[in-house]
């Protein structure tokens, strides 16, 4: 009997106009979007290669110490899921304001958009009249009259409806994936296909969630007109309003001082330290004056021989000669230098500690704000799905962090290499200066490796869990309501 219900719901949907519209819309948009994005991907890949080559060319012609660290910036290759999902622009890209500004005004269309906006709306349109509509047409009465439990009816409606809804989606995705597979520019390995499978599973969770939402609202309404209105209202709330508002609300709840304010504070600390150092220096000079008397005033006339500040070379030379000739003078000079170092060092250490604390403080606060925004947005299934999909495919904020980490790793490899190169060059060539040419042809190259699937999965599972939970809650609510539904 359950099978009959499922078949009837399935056939009912498939023969309907909305199925045709859904199918056409899905296939056209998905395929068009994948073709265009694959094209973009090829361009970005070419662009990336060009960047790497230009950098190589620059380094092989102009690599001197002055420009090394500026030029050796690991370049991020385009994400391999770029034909499906457009990544978040990293820090490097957001600077380029005079690239095409339109994608910023109208965020572009990708797989995420298709699932979150088009499929979710379609899911609601498939299910909004599943119960209320059948009541209106009178068929629900007839079904109930049979010896079948309401649980089975509801379950059958869910399975049959969701199946008919997923057909256009899966079909469109299959065509798109076929295109990706046949495209010679896109080389996906096993882990990429595994990620795609997981992404599809997550998308299905998300789509059934909205189907169940429609079913639930339908069970709560008497006629389909109110049902569709409530559905659209909830959809706007869940998809558009909550995720858009959350960053602002969290910024209000958890304020962080602006960077400028921190810079100002840092400057104040530095100024105070410089003042303190000057004061200590004066005290020290006074102390030495009283201890050494004439000898020290002679040293003073040489502007302290360069111990305090940079001075003219002749004074420095004079002090050096004087120290070489007179051991007493030398002892005094060394004592002055040592004591000066001892008084200065703690002040600078405290300064460094204070400024570090300042920056650490703002970073933890910013991280807390981001986390709050992220958690707040979890009330909306949209946000959960975006986290899952982006983090799974390496196109989200997590992947930007990951890239920063690999950059640091590369720096650890690269910095000693350059240090050694410079040392060798200095040994071999005494005239080596900061802008002499340095041969770096055997440098370690930066190779970007995707984050391990296991790590990614651990990251996304909680959010996926919330999606499943939404599914369960909506089904239970629909069930509770349908049990007492007046079918007349």
């Amino acid at each position: 009997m359950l099978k009959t219900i499922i078949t009837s719901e399935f056939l009912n949907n498939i023969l309907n106009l909305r199925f045709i519209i859904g199918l056409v819309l899905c296939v056209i948009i998905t395929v068009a979007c994948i073709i265009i994005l694959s094209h973009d991907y090829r361009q970005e890949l070419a662009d990336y290669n060009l960047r790497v080559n230009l950098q190589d060319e620059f380094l092989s012609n102009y690599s001197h110490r002055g420009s090394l660290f500026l030029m050796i910036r690991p370049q991020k290759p385009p994400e391999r899921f770029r034909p499906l999902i457009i990544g978040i622009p990293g820090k490097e890209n957001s600077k380029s304001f005079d690239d095409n500004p339109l994608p910023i005004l109208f965020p572009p269309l990708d797989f995420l958009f298709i699932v979150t906006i088009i499929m979710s709306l379609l899911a609601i349109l498939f299910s909004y009249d599943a119960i209320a509509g059948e009541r209106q047409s009178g068929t629900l009465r007839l079904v109930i009259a049979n010896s079948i439990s309401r649980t089975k009816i509801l379950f059958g409606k869910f399975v049959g409806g969701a199946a008919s809804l997923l057909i256009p989606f899966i079909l469109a995705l299959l065509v798109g994936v076929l295109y990706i597979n046949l495209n010679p520019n896109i080389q996906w390995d096993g882990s990429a296909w595994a990620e795609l499978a997981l992404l599809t599973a997550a998308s299905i969770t998300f789509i059934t969630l909205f189907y169940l939402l429609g079913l639930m609202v339908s069970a709560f309404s008497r006629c389909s007109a109110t049902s569709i209105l409530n559905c659209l209202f909830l959809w706007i709330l869940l998809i558009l309003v909550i995720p858009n508002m959350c960053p602002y609300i969290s910024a209000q709840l958890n304020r962080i001082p602006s960077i400028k304010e921190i810079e100002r504070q840092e400057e104040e600390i530095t100024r105070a330290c410089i003042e303190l150092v000057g004061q200590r220096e004066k005290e020290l000079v006074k102390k030495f004056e009283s201890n050494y008397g004439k000898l020290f005033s002679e040293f003073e006339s040489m502007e302290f021989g360069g111990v305090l500040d940079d001075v003219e070379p002749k004074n420095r030379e004079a002090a050096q000669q004087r120290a070489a000739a007179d051991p007493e003078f030398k002892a005094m000079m060394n004592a002055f230098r040592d004591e000066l170092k001892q008084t200065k060092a703690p002040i600078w250490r405290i300064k460094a500690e204070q400024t570090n604390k300042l920056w650490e403080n703002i970073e933890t606060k910013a991280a807390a704000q981001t986390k709050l925004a992220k958690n707040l947005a979890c009330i909306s299934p949209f946000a959960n799905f975006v986290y899952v999909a982006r983090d799974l495919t390496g196109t989200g904020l997590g992947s930007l962090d990951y890239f920063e980490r690999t950059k640091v790793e590369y720096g650890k490899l690269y910095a000693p290499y350059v240090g050694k190169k410079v040392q060798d060059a200095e040994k071999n060539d005494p005239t080596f200066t900061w802008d002499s040419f340095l041969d770096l042809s055997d440098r370690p190259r930066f190779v970007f490796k995707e984050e391990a699937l296991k790590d990614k999965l651990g990251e996304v599972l909680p959010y996926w869990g919330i999606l499943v939970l939404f599914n369960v809650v909506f089904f239970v609510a629909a069930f509770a309501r349908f049990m007492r539904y007046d079918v007349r």
Partner: protein
Amino acid sequence: MLGTLVRKEITETILDMRFWVVTVLFLILIPLGMYVSRKDYERRLANYQQEHQMYRQHYGKDVGPDVEAQGFRPPSMLSIFALGLDPFMPDKAITSRSGLVRAAKEPGINNPESLLFGKADYLFNVSFIVSLAALIFTFNRISGERERGTLRLMISGSIRRGEILLAKIVGNYIVLLVPFVIAFLAALIILNTSSAISVWSSGLWFALLVIILITLLFILAMVSLGICVSALTHGSMASIMMLFLVWIMGVLGIPKISPMIAEAVYPIESRNVVDLAARIAREDIEGEFNKKREELFEKCCTEFGTTWEDIAVEPRTDAEKQAYAKYDREVLALDSECQKRVANAIRKLEQDYRNRRNIQASLAVNLSRISPVSCYTYLISGLAGTGPAEPDKFTENAERYQEQVKAAIYDNWVVKTYRMGEPRPNIRVRQTEGFDQSKASVPDMRYEYTTIGEALRAGWIDILLLFVFNILFFAVAFWRFNKYDVR
């Protein structure tokens, strides 16, 4: 008779549940959106002021020869209505002695979540939520009445079909405007409570008036579109599907897909590539001129009978002094030529890149104008100073500022570069007469946003298109409705 029909439409809509749902939605979202946008604006303004002040303290006076004056861009006040490109616009212009001006953005710790999702400003609320509400109000006005059978009764009276259609548009438009206007007024009150903004200040109220007029035109277009959808379908069910299709394509599909199509049709390389190419061009030219300088110096030395290896930083003998003096005079021409060539090469690269980017952008803009939502977005963001034309406006401002700084500072320092055998340049500077370093200060950048007149002139095509859309939707609805089978 028209009056009766309009009244009937109004009462019918007000008694419907959707009116109340939409009213609640508007009353919450529009003022809330205005509130968060206002807060955001105040934060950006405070950042700008702080940065500007700090820079003043550093370079308020005593400007040396190696300063690179910076000008700061204040946030646009109307960006409260449409944030648009603002988060991606550079914050400051860094001028330079060579005549090139760079744009820079402070890497502030901003909340990265806001990148993941959209925005919540007025533009978003109108183009997404108000447009959807307009369609929801109207999608089954004709098809629904046919289903209920009331359309038949109405047609049997001596009323022309055009009148019925007009009454439906006018009635729904009026009913939709009531919650919208109330929400908008509430939003304005929220805006006015801010200390940084005064709604009645001279520039703002006029801009507000223009914004509200354009918004009214846009809402009318969406109501007509809804009636048109209704006239094209025969049942509520089909109407809903049409509504879904139209809204997705009009609001989301067309504006999003057109830049992608433009990118595919007319590809350009990324900014990074251009930057690298510029760097290489600069290194090449500078290397060439370093060689020329050395040659010149050698020439001067041999002319006065001394060899250039011997010369120390300070000339000692008369011959060396003479050689120095000659080099001094002649190297100036080389220096200025070098700077000019570097600047020209980079400017050419930039110009070329910008031209191609503009072609791509205009292609995308024109493609997306099929949808009224894009036209509306261009108009409002253009008025707010955050539209697609703003990056060019920034460049314009930055170049003007460069000229200003050049006259105030750079021209008053004469910088000469000496090269003596070693690659490290020995730079000497001299002030022009009458220039007092201790009193000179870096001038402020007076940033000029697109004025309302300019924005309207640039957006006349969008306004025209909005009118055309209104007429078109009405015409299609009229044509279909005249042949509508009311049974």
